[in-house]
């Protein structure tokens, strides 16, 4: 008994309550998304997604208990091993996986399906934490940076090979973790600027259909003006010239990246962001229907189980990637508000937990958890309301699916476990 009280003594109940609030809200919405008034099915019906999700919730609770009863030191010591195992699974899935919707990311054994890339985020976070947990590791040292790059790019490359660009994009959020751990902000700023220039260039060439000559001419004229202004100071002069050339380079790359690297469906997903009416029956359809469903909810929604757009299949994937539509439609702005507040609170709470860690390992891991949740939450919502291209990533704890729910549970509760032992310092 004494050990038991020890286990729960230092857990962060705020995080746990937020977690269960999200999971239960999600469960009700999965039921609502598939509810058919004429069929009179119960939320517990195992033929329904809601019934199956309940099993996954049960499995998650068991997972949580296992995590709590395990020795927290295992987390640190198994970090690289787990990373290695998942990398092997990511390789194996390329050969033995089943292709679903264009990506080979699922193992299928009987009726049981499992997506290793969901766990890649977790083990990458562990490996990164382990790597940076070494007090010697410094992010301004080239060899250490290369190590970090290796940890990140291995899973990303394998996931990209599966054809799952959406999950691969999640790893980009680790740059914020690295920034917190001392990475120079320059790559971050350059990345954001590059993305803005890239999108602007797409907008100008693909939507406005401006001739590239005009764009280059404008950039070069601005560049020359900047160079003339800065001609006195040598370093500024060189920077001006370099930036001008870099922007030209990005613009030049747009054609290549957009037309040759991106697949046609990815191209249209970007284009419909700028103009949703571009292809209302095709690529614009999902986003349009999703926005209609959410928008039709109004202030207080149509009521639980009263949504029509989601239930009558106007919104595709309404149990998984587009689960937020059900919330928006049935619970209106109030529901959206609650979801956003709950998620923001959870993310900020996890950041808080990370900051109070004594070990760098735990802090890095905590930031990884917060940022993964942040990326999934913000990008998933953005894509349902037409602020971001549809990249097919789930809303944590809400979207239907065992792999996703258990992976996020493990991710979060590993942090809760580490946090409950924050007073104990591991000796290396």
């Amino acid at each position, binding site marked *: 008994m004494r050990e038991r009280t020890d286990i729960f003594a230092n857990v962060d109940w705020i995080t746990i309550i937020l977690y269960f609030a999200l999971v239960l809200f999600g469960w009700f919405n999965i039921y609502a998304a598939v509810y058919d008034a004429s069929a009179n099915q119960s939320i517990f019906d195992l033929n329904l997604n809601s019934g199956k999700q309940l099993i996954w919730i049960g499995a998650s609770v068991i997972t949580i208990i296992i995590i709590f009863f395990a020795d927290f030191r295992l987390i640190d010591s198994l970090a690289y091993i787990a990373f290695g195992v998942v990398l092997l699974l990511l390789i194996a899935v390329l050969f033995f996986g089943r292709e679903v919707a264009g990506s080979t990311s699922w193992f299928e054994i009987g009726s049981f399906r499992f997506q290793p890339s969901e766990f890649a985020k977790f083990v990458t976070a562990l490996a990164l934490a382990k790597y940076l947990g070494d007090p010697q590791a410094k992010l301004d040292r080239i060899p250490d940076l290369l190590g970090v790059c290796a940890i990140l790019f291995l899973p990303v490359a394998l996931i990209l090979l599966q054809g799952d660009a959406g999950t691969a994009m999640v790893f980009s959020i680790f740059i914020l973790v690295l920034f917190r751990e001392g990475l120079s902000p320059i790559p971050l700023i350059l990345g954001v600027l590059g993305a803005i220039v890239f999108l602007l260039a797409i907008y100008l060439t693909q939507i406005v259909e401006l001739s590239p000559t005009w764009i280059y001419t404008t950039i070069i004229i601005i560049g020359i003006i900047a160079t003339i202004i800065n001609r006195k100071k040598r370093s500024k002069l060189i920077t001006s010239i370099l930036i001008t050339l870099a922007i030209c380079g990005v613009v030049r790359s747009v054609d290549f990246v957009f037309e040759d690297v991106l697949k046609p469906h990815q191209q249209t997903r970007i284009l419909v962001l700028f103009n949703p009416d571009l292809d209302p029956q095709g690529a614009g359809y999902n986003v349009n229907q999703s926005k209609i469903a959410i*928008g039709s909810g*109004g202030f207080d929604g149509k009521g639980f189980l009263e949504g*029509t*757009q989601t239930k009558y299949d106007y919104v595709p994937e309404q149990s998984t990637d587009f689960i937020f539509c059900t919330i928006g439609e049935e619970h209106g702005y109030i529901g959206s508000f609650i979801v*956003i507040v709950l*998620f923001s609170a959870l993310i*900020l709470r996890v950041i808080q937990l990370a900051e109070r860690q004594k070990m760098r390992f735990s802090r890095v891991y905590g930031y990884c958890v917060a940022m993964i949740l942040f990326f999934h939450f*913000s990008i998933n919502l953005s894509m349902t*309301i037409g602020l971001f291209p549809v990249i097919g990533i789930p809303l944590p704890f809400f979207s239907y699916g065992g792999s996703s729910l258990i992976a996020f549970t493990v991710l979060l509760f590993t942090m809760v476990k580490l946090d409950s032992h924050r007073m104990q310092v591991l000796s290396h």
Partner: protein
Amino acid sequence: MFKERKVIIQSVVIFVGIILLTRLFHLQIIDETSRLAADNNSRRKFVEYPYRGLIYDRNGEIIVYNKPVYDIMVVPSEVDMEDTTKFCSLLDIDKQNFIERMSEAKHYSYVKPSVFYSQMSNEEFARIQDRFSEYSGFYVTPKTNRYYPYSGMANALGYIGEVTPGILKRDTTSYYKSGDLIGISGLESKYEDALRGKRGVSYKMINVHGVVKGKYKEGKSDTIPEPGLNITTTIDSELQKYGEKLMDGKIGSVVAIEPATGEILSIVSAPSYNPNLLTGREFSKNYSLINSDTTKPLYNRPIQADQYPPGSIFKMIQALIALEEGVISPQTRVVCNRSIINCHGPHSYEDLRGAIKHSCNPYFYETFKRIIQQGEVNSFNADAAVGLEGWIEHLKTFGLGQRLGIDLPNERTGVVPTVSLYNRIYGEGSWNFFTVYSLSIGQGELGVSPLQMANLSAIIANRGFYITPHLVKEIGGSRELVPEKYKKKNYTSVSPDKYGVVVDAMDAVVNSGWSGTGARAHIDDIVVCGKTGTAQNPHGEDHSVFIAFAPKDNPKIAVSVYVENAGQGARAAASIAGLMIEKYLKGEIERKHIEDYALEGDFIY
């Protein structure tokens, strides 16, 4: 180390949250378009068609009803058929046809039902019904078609068809939608508003595949269809059938009216067509066949053939006007001077009754001259204009030269000349009685439709008034909705006491043995009054005309018969009129020889 960066990251999280909340605020609260779009998506209007009203004859016999037909619908995605041969033989189509129908359906939609086989008859459907259920993906939608149990009276009943773009454009009430059925001619068109009933509308929720998932807002905005009102017509279908039988193979019209009420007992247009041809899926094919028939079966002669010269039946009107004007009396005699105008039969110096009986042309030449040239004005020519004007006013009160107002579409006016017409032809003041004298015997610038002739017969039968002839007796089981004009008496300008001599003369036409021209209309125990006409026709043989009513006292039926190119009115027309009266008043025909004559007779000799 780098602790301050925590704040930056927290700010990013909060900032993104605010962006999302702002965007959602706009989407969910400010922007209305999604709410409309959501309704557009998932709410669909379903029209429920009411049962069209039935049509009965005056004795309660049904003459138009709705017959169930079955549309075979297919949902291509649900079809699972290994061997189509059996299915094809069931529907009696060949394999190629099956493939065509399927690909058409697939072209429309894989998941929504479309018509595979339209308007299968009750009998056909009964034959396949049992085995039909074995085939998945095929469904049956019952519909109704108009059906005419006895195949006559096509032009009076009319037909229904899909609304045309033209009708939709003219429809100011915006009631009709493309694909609706509407009465296009005859009674179906005239009483469309009563017969059609009221469409019901229901709003249902549909899913993305178009499958109905339930009522919209629990059916609060739904309306139930109201069936159309049944109509009882004035038609006696036995008489109608008989009239059609008599007119078989002839061109012309028979119209029978109940004089006291203006109710049309029968209205025959010959040749006609089987109204059942213009229902159902063969509509267009049959319509173009009928429409291109050179005998013009779609031409509704009783109300549209208004160019017929009335011929001798017009002499009664001349007599009545002359009596009213006081220019003759029943005792007035006129020498049958055949040097001015030809005549027929052995007579020489008749009074009015004899003149009508013998159809004496010189008598009415003189009579008309007295009407026209009354010496009101000094100038002989100008006097004719005044006289003619007065004469025309009289004619109008007999319903000539204007639409009577029967409840059928496209009634025509007939022709009554005007003073200005002659002024235009001959010049003002340059014409007089001698210019227009052919009017005196019902020739010249006169045109009368068979309906107007029957109405004339009814006027004489009623001794001076008529009720606008009509076909509707009850609407929805009551007379309340029957227009007022079908209940109101219209008096002629000739006072009732003037009619006696004309009635007596018409009695004599029929009941003077073979010396009367109407002898073929004689029935032993019924006093039939009639008048023959033989209208000259520049294009061929004369038209045979007869009007009659019976019995003489308290008449029950007034008839006009017009048979084109059948020679003298005494032959075909008088026979048919007599038979119609006999059939109506006695129920059966005792004078078989007349019937045979009317059916088989060669009237031209």
